[in-house]
């Protein structure tokens, strides 16, 4: 099922989400958090095409709130976001019993070793360096979701 998100407005997204999905609300698969709307849009397009339920967020605080509400299975976090960095969000989640099983993917721009080391220590599961191929990311998501459901 394809949902038509209004591009940047998260509130409208929620309204649409609720009005369209109804019963499927509980089963959000993926949350994508990035302050670049284009990247969020591209990823969510690909995931939705593959039939996953997707939520989006544009900063660290918002994504935490949404994770608590919807309990997704995968979270994409941009490393540099307003309010809270991807690292901090990741640490918060991994400390919490309820959320520590969520698969966390860090989107990093630099791909530098230092950032990567920091994120590994924060407990992130996977790293993707921008620019990435949406197709490969989708394949990765399929593998992760396939594994965890099996």
């Amino acid at each position: 099922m394809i949902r038509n998100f209004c591009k940047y407005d998260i509130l409208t997204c929620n309204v649409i989400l609720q009005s369209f999905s109804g019963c499927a609300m509980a089963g959000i698969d993926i949350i994508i958090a990035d302050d670049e709307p284009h990247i969020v849009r591209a990823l969510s397009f690909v995931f939705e095409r593959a039939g996953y339920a997707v939520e989006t967020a544009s900063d660290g605080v918002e994504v935490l709130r949404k994770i608590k509400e919807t309990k997704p299975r995968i979270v994409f976090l941009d490393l540099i976001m307003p309010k809270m960095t991807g690292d901090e969000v990741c640490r918060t989640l991994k400390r919490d019993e309820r959320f520590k099983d969520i698969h966390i993917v860090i989107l990093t721009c630099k791909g530098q070793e230092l950032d990567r080391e920091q994120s590994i220590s924060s407990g992130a599961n996977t790293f993707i360096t921008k620019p990435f191929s949406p197709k490969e990311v989708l394949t990765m998501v399929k593998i992760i979701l396939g594994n965890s459901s099996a």
Partner: protein
Amino acid sequence: MKTRFRTSFLFLAVLLLLPACLVSGGTESPVRFLFFPLIAFLSLYFSSRALHLAGLAFTVLFPLMYLFTPPAPIHLTVVFAEIAAFFLCTLVAGFVSGRIRQERFRYDNAIATFHSLSDALNHKNMNLQTALDALSEAHKKLQEFDKTKTEFVSNVSHELRTPLSSIRSYSEILLNYDDIESVTQREFLQTINSESERMSRFVTEVLDLIRIESGKQEISFSSVRSEELLTESEKIIRPMAMEKGLELVLEKTEVLPDVRGERNQLIQVLVNLLNNAVKFTRSGSIKLGARAREGFVEFFVSDTGEGIFPEEQELIFQPFARIAEHGTNRPKGSGLGLSISKGIVEFHGGRIWVDSELGKGSSFFFTVPEATKSTSGFEHSELDMRNPVMVSYRPILVVTHDIVSRRCLRKKLEEVGFHTLGADTAARALDIMGKMRPGLIVTELPEDWEEFEVLIQWAREAGTRILLTTLHIHAGEEPALAVHGYVSKPFDKYEILSLLESYHVQGGPVIIISPDRDESRTLQVILGAAGFDSVLFHDGSSAVAACEASCPSAIFIGSFRKEALEEIFTGIKSSHRSGNVPIYQLLGTTLNRYVTPVTLSPAGRKAEPRSLYKLVGKIEKEFSKGLE
């Protein structure tokens, strides 16, 4: 005094031996033979002639005692034996004490050598320490530079990868999915288009910034109408402001003077500021305007946006210092706009700053120097100042600390037909320049580098040249040029070496006199690397003494107070050993092309009498250059 006391004491002791001998066993006692070597030895050991004579007297007198002691007949052989024994002992003792003295001399020598060596070692150690300090300082600076560079590169790569990842994602999506609705297809293509535009804009900005910061722009300044800058930039921004529903007000208050600069760059600054204002203002108005301010035109752009945190107000002019922490959904930019603007404004000789109150809005200001009449002369024929008669009325401003040399120079200049003004400090000179514009400034080194920098800045803006010189009056003669060259900061090894070479300075110790330890250490390291031994002094009097004692091959003088500097010059010039040694003065600042140093020439190294005429000649030449 002490030796004499000791000698007489020993002498008494020897004489006392006489009765002691008698008491111990009479004249027959063989104990007396022990005394001869003892006396001989002592006399030689202390190298006392009196003692030696006493010993001899004792030896000769001793047999006489027999004459006065009746029962003991004396044998002549005994007497001879005693005398022989004494001389033998003296001989042996002489040899032994000679050896002892020799050893002691060697020992003293060794000690002296040790001390001098350890002094030299200490000196070397200190030099090494200074070298180490200077090197670690340089290392730290390089590290900082390296860090900024790395950060810059990493920021640039971040800014490039973000749009690149959008472009890549959307193009891949468009290639992989055949059944996308045409509206979505169009949306994705638009994103690709806008993101590629963003990339190319960013690349242009980075190149701009690098070019501006390197200061290697080849831009010719001309006179630009301030109103034109305002209206042009308003035209560019108005559609953006209207789209966002913001009011854009162009405030026109007064007739503005023209500014000196490059038109497109100045418009770029205004557009950057306006662009930010539109981006960060949700509702309200944006004001744009300018006013004349003491030789500058001050432009401003104020908005009714969110405002900027006080601690961020300094940071925002640095590359990539985007304020992302506080605001929500802040619009994105490259983060370079303000640093580019700052670079441009500073290149023009102005400054840029911000006033902001949280929640009420921000006002950005920047200044650009007014176009001076000489630079605008080619464009406005009615203001043509190239008429030499008019220009020659522009006075020469003489700034020297010492009133005698100032008067002397002014008199000489007025004899040649110039108008002159005088000032004793850079601050006073700035006062005068506020009232009237001199055609040329002749100045000595100031006590305050900041004031001097303001002076240079002013001269640069006004297009006036500065002649830098150091005058000194020696022994009541007329003032003369005192130094052979200036070394500006940061120290450049090649500059310093060529300076030394031009005055044929080879080998021999170089004396550095500076109150600033870091400065002198750095210089010492540079000179040391070039093979010049140098000695540091931090105050004038000891340095002057050293100049007299040694024969230095060159002298570097740092920034001292005027009186101290005069004393040093007097000291150096009055010594026949250091009187003709090249003297270089260290500057606390960097010179630009508006400042021309006037120094003693290498040819006149021996002595340059009447060097004031040389200065006057130089002034005439520079002044006529200003007319061209």
